[in-house]
């Protein structure tokens, strides 16, 4: 383009405009790329931080809309926003407001914000104000926030 586009050519004006537009487009796309690159590097940094921090592991997540049937075993943290039917064993379990668990649950720390039905064995139990809990619960320390609906057998160890 640069060789042929001289100021003397009659249709030069249009060419120049087209050229400018192209340039502008190219510029905008390059900035987008930069932004993407920046965000991805930021993610990498934040992920690296979580990995490097001792004692805080990344949680395993059952997302909303996800239905799991079977046995889950984990040494770490488990966040449940979906549905789990079966047996769960983990160090720390969080049942989110949208989460449903039906079955057997064993954990050190258990926070229930959603629905839980079944047999529970835990050390530290925290039931949120919108939670529904039904079953046999054996625990060491319990905290039920006002409004939490709980029924069944409670056994303190």
């Amino acid at each position, binding site marked *: 383009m640069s060789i042929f586009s001289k100021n003397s050519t009659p249709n030069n004006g249009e060419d120049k405009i087209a050229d400018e537009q192209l340039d502008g487009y190219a510029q905008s796309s390059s900035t987008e790329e930069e932004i993407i690159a920046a965000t991805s590097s930021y993610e990498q940094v934040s992920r690296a931080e979580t990995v490097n921090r001792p004692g805080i592991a990344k949680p395993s997540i059952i997302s909303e809309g996800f239905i799991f049937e079977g046995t889950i075993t984990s040494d770490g943290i488990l966040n449940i926003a979906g549905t789990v039917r079966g047996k769960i064993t983990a160090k720390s379990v969080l049942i989110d407001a949208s989460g449903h668990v039906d079955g057997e649950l064993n954990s050190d720390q258990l926070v229930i914000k959603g629905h839980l039905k079944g047999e529970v064995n835990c050390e530290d139990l925290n039931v949120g104000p919108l939670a529904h809990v039904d079953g046999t619960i054996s625990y060491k320390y319990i905290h039920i926030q*006002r409004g*939490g609906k*709980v*029924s069944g057998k*409670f056994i303190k160890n």
Partner: protein
Amino acid sequence: MAEVNQQGCLFVGEGVVLKGNFEVPDIASISGVVEGELTAKQIIIEATGVVNGKLSGESIDIRGEANEFVSSTRSLIIRSTGKVTGSIHYSEIEIEKGGHLHGDLNNLNPHS
């Protein structure tokens, strides 16, 4: 609150042991021991208080001990020093961290 109007209230002091059935129109504050049935609008079991028997009321606040049966039509609060065993019926419950709960828990209106 209780000192202002003691009409219809029952106070059981520390060291007092009461046996029988009690109908209290307003507040029952228990620091001693009650054995039997206790019905009141509002029941407060203080840290030294113990109730062995049937406990029913609108609002029940437990800092001490309640054994056998507890039924609350409005709110049941088990404080951190509280200990409840037996059959429990409630419409709204709160248990502070450290509270002791051992028994069957039933929601009076489970579909609300």
